[in-house]
């Protein structure tokens, strides 16, 4: 699971290396990646919203 | 199902979901606005007065602005141009509708609040804006607005402006709307 999250995080950051990628595509289940991607998108929204709310004070 | 059909089936499901989502966004947006106070939207349901300690240490000016929209020969006037109230204090202000035409007509006053954050702290107990008004030819109607500003009104807000814009309601229109758009509130 941690590996999946790490890969998706790398995707959000936009950087991923070759070795890591090969590993993802040998072992990972696609559903896990999609779910983690959606979950992290939600987390991103929450984090940015929190930053905005704090900044607005 | 072969894999191509499966892919097509899944995309079509997503597609229909997104089309429905577009329509779902209408009530969602409405609800979101009321929760966050975006757009100065106020709930269209009466709320009851909450007995809370009146904050006598500060005064807030509440302004009333009435505007006439197109196509309705009515006049809407507030009894006072503005009042000064304490947060927490229930206040009643009278408004007068008059129909200067020779026909019976239906109209609605659409409310808006400025600054928009204030709408979260405004409790309308009784308001003519909750419903349509029907006025006979030449009729004059006095209706009260009863409201309360909550105690937690942010300290930097010293003036709250309530604006009411008059719009005509075609008789056929109000019914059609209730049919096609049940989500927009049962009081239409």
């Amino acid at each position, binding site marked *: 699971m941690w590996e999946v999250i790490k890969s998706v995080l790398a995707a959000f950051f936009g*950087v991923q290396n070759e070795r890591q990628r090969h590993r993802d595509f040998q072992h990972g289940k696609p559903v896990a990646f999609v779910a983690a991607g959606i979950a992290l998108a939600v987390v991103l929204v929450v984090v940015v919203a929190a930053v905005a709310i704090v900044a607005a004070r | 199902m072969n894999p191509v059909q499966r892919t097509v089936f899944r995309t079509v499901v997503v597609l229909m979901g997104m089309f429905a989502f577009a329509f779902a966004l209408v009530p969602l947006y409405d609800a979101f606005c009321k929760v966050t106070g975006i757009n100065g939207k106020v709930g269209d349901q009466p709320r009851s007065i909450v007995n809370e300690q009146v904050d006598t240490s500060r005064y807030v000016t509440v302004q009333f602005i009435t505007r006439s929209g*197109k196509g*309705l020969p009515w006049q809407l006037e507030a009894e006072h141009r503005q009042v000064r109230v304490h947060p927490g204090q229930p206040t009643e202000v009278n408004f007068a509708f008059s129909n200067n035409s020779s026909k019976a007509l239906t109209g609605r006053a659409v409310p808006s609040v400025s600054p928009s954050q204030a709408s979260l702290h405004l409790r309308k107990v009784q308001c003519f804006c909750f419903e349509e008004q029907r006025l006979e030819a030449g009729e004059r109607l006095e209706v009260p607005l009863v409201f309360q500003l909550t105690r937690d009104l942010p300290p930097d807000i010293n003036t709250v402006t309530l604006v009411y814009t008059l719009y005509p309601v075609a008789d056929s229109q109000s019914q059609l709307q209730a049919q096609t758009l049940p989500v927009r509130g049962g009081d239409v």
Partner: protein
Amino acid sequence: MRKSLAWMMGAGSFLGLASSTLANGWNMPVGVTDVSREIYSLHMTIFWICVVIGIVVFGVMFYSLFRYRRSRGAKSANFHENTSVEVVWTAIPLLILVGMALPATATLKRMYDPSEAELDVMVTGQQWRWHYEYLGEDVSFTSSLSTPRSQVNGEEEKDENYLLDVDEPLVLPVGRKVRFLMTSDDVIHSWWVPDLAVKQDSIPGFVNENWVRIEEPGIYRGQCAELCGKDHAFMPIVVRAVEADEFDTWLAERQEAAAAEASGVDREWGMDELMERGEQVYGSICATCHQPDGSGAEPTFPALAGNEALLNDLDRHIDVVLNGVSGTPMAAYRGNLNPVELAAVITYERNAWGNESGDAVQPSEIQALLE
């Protein structure tokens, strides 16, 4: 943190000043309010950051294009990945962005300051003019384009303030906090004066607000910024900022004039004075759509000259002018014009351009319909 912020803003405004002297009329105006100056320096700061990034990035690119072209005998390498380089060039932009977001957030917060204002002005957008009401002061007027049509059509030399001149500028005091309440009678407009850094949509049925404290007297010009129909280009804004005491005098004069006009409602008005007043009102309010000669522009704007339906039905005529027609650009003028102006303009429309109804509508008749 604060220090580096201040430093960045300082550097930005220095570079900004340097370039503003160079590029007058090529750049955003610095403006005459706190907020406008802050926005300007933010704009210049970010502009220069972009320039620097651009120089570095394009520098590397053009160096590569020059150095590694095949005509110079370049042999291609085969690398295609370097994680540390990629992490660095992702992280550095992130830091730069945080550096941009900090001053931007600070400025934005200063723009959203709802504290008590000393003057409230209601700004109403209409197709295609602005209506201003000084709330609680009994002063309101409509401000429309005064550039003559002949200049637009090229029959006459265009003057210096071509398309940026109005018959009645909005007068505001210097040094006082003014609150604008923006709304619209028809479509969405946007009230924009660059020197005040105020741009706010005016939306039918809703009220937006904005604040300004002007620091220097002067004349500031702007335009409607949201497409609002055919004459979107022809609804300018002119703000005349004057010293506070001059403003008070001006406001008192306007109140007196309004009171005088109000007292004139009850008396009997003669045809000639109604026509004279009516022509003036027609020219500033009605002529943009219905044309100075009453010929209109079918199908949207009906002709008034020779309009039998209108001439035969005085009540209908009064109703349309007072209450507007929903779903068309015809606004309800009951709130925008006083009884004298309404009576005069209706009388004018019924007796000008060959219309010969002979009706002289009295302000008192109109007054009765407004109560």
